[in-house]
């Protein structure tokens, strides 16, 4: 299918609405061939993730290694994190589900296999799913996420199935550190523990990365940031994987709660703070494209990143659906073209509000703001409905996307036993720590006053506006009111 690559015509003076300004996050400096592959992939392009959806099918239950942040025992429907699923699928079921979702959510462009174990430790199930889909639904991009142990042996097969994206989770290149993350691997018919096992895993990951790069298959590297274990080391990892041909690095925060029963959870290993994560991502971004919009989704997630519509597509519901995929493909192509057109138009519009940002005096300090959105790249969500916020940083020259922050108890939204009596609002205020404004389509009176009291200015005046424009406008208002003069910031910090 011929979809136009966005933003290609423009020189670097153009400002893509996804990640503005001079950060290294944008994909604009990548070769055309790579941008063509990622422009509608929500997990690879920050721009795309506002408009295009993805899904994972849980066909790969077995794993060949143990990671200290994973526990293979649990399936909680309320939990959202990698490795967790509700319903294991056979390849035939997965193909049926994928086609049903593609027909019902036409902006779904990508099918990934990510677990709940390791896709390449289940080669028959994984490749059978890919084989059928590349034949029956050629308009869906296929991708796979792996720990890398079985990758070198699978590269040849992967390259046969129209798979042009592979994610490898690489947490370290040092076996000493690896031994603190991976207690064992299963390799050549033996369970190998400690440093010896970690060394083999690292070798296979690096070899797999090089082989994929040689074949022209795009590689994203995921790394879990584990404070005190690999946090200092990940900058080096970023450099090395870039040298070997990875095109995007996604540093994710460790998820560790005692309730998950994982080694890190039970042993009290903490995850990084928002600040620590951002500092590391910024440090790596000097050398590498960084991904900041990852939602660390479940191995059976369906929908836009940040939403999960899996409940609408359980196997019993799918059995009742009658899918005409040929008709669906026509509709999908139309919708993809319409989104592409819309994005193109957006790029052509002059960025009035952003242009005027440069008129603000230079000593004005940068500000973090939280945005409530359901997707589409616009401010369109009621404050009270937001389950996550996108965090943007505005300064005098540009607006850039920093991260997302989830509202609920972070990884569990389940029953009464999960709460600790804290009100949802006070939790949200904690989640928005460091932000000075929250931009949403609407907000109620009570949260308004409490947010204000906490030093976070609510703003409901930019509903349906593009996010960057709204952030820029609010920043301008704040700057003009004198709230951002350097001396003022010290006062605010003192009272915060």
């Amino acid at each position, binding site marked *: 299918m011929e979809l136009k690559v966005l933003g290609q015509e423009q020189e670097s003076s153009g400002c893509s609405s996804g990640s503005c300004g001079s950060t290294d996050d944008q994909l604009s400096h990548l070769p055309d061939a790579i941008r063509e592959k990622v422009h509608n992939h929500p997990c690879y392009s920050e721009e795309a993730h506002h408009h295009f959806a993805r899904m994972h099918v849980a066909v790969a*239950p*077995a*794993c*060949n290694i*143990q990671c*200290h942040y994973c*526990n*293979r*025992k649990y399936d909680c429907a309320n939990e959202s994190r990698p490795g967790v699923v509700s319903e*294991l699928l056979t390849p035939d079921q997965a193909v049926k589900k994928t086609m049903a979702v593609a027909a019902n959510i036409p902006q779904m462009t990508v099918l990934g296999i990510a677990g*709940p*174990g390791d896709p390449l*430790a*289940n080669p*028959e199930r994984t490749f059978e799913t890919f084989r059928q889909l590349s034949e029956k639904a050629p308009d869906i991009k296929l991708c796979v996420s792996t720990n890398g142990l079985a990758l070198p042996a699978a590269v040849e097969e992967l390259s046969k199935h129209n798979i042009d994206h592979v994610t490898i989770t690489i947490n370290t290149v040092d076996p000493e550190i690896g031994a603190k993350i991976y*207690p*064992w691997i*299963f390799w050549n*018919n*033996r*369970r190998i523990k400690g440093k010896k096992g970690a060394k083999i895993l690292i070798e296979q990951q690096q070899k797999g990365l090089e082989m994929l790069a040689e074949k022209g298959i795009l590689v994203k590297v995921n790394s879990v940031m584990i404070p005190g274990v690999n946090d200092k080391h990940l900058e080096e990892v970023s450099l090395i994987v870039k040298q070997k041909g990875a095109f995007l690095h996604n540093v994710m925060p460790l998820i560790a709660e*005692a*309730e998950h*029963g*994982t*080694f890190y959870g*039970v*042993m009290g290993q903490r995850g990084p703070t928002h600040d620590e994560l951002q500092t590391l991502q910024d440090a790596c971004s000097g050398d590498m494209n960084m991904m900041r919009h990852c939602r660390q989704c479940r191995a059976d997630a369906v929908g836009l990143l940040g939403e999960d519509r899996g409940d609408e597509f359980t196997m019993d519901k799918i059995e009742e659906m009658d899918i005409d995929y040929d008709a669906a493909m026509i509709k999908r192509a139309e919708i993809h073209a319409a989104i592409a057109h819309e994005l193109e138009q957006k790029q052509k519009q002059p960025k009035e509000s952003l242009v005027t940002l440069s008129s603000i005096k230079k000593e004005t300090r940068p500000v973090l703001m939280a945005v409530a959105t359901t997707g589409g790249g616009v401010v369109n969500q009621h404050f009270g409905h937001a389950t996550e916020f996108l965090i943007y940083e505005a300064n005098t020259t540009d607006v850039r996307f920093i991260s997302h922050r989830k509202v609920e108890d972070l990884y569990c939204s389940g029953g009464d*036993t999960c709460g*600790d009596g804290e009100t949802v609002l006070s939790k949200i205020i904690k989640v928005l720590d460091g932000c000075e404004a929250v931009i949403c389509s609407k907000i109620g009176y009570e949260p308004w006053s409490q947010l204000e009291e906490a030093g976070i200015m609510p703003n409901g005046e930019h509903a349906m506006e593009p996010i960057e424009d709204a952030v820029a406008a609010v920043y301008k208002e704040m700057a003009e009111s004198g709230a951002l003069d350097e001396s003022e910031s010290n006062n605010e910090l003192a009272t915060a």
Partner: protein
Amino acid sequence: MAYSIVEKCVKCHACAPACPNEAIYEATLHFMVDPKKCTECEGDFADPQCASICPIEGAILDGYKVVANPPGSLTGIPAEKFEEVMAEIQAR
């Protein structure tokens, strides 16, 4: 003598393709070993394959009904620590 899989199994499928004798099959509640086919991998591998790839402590028993992977051996979490933390969570 034969290995066996007990109710702690979480049906992750890892053991079945690893078995050189196709002795492992999926049953309703968990995977099972057909004792007539199991050779404990003797002659094929140095270690029994199902017990070497299984990620769940206590899910596989050896021919003497002894747990092949006792608590703490795979996760690295000391058994007492695990019990202590779980008790804490229960008490919340």
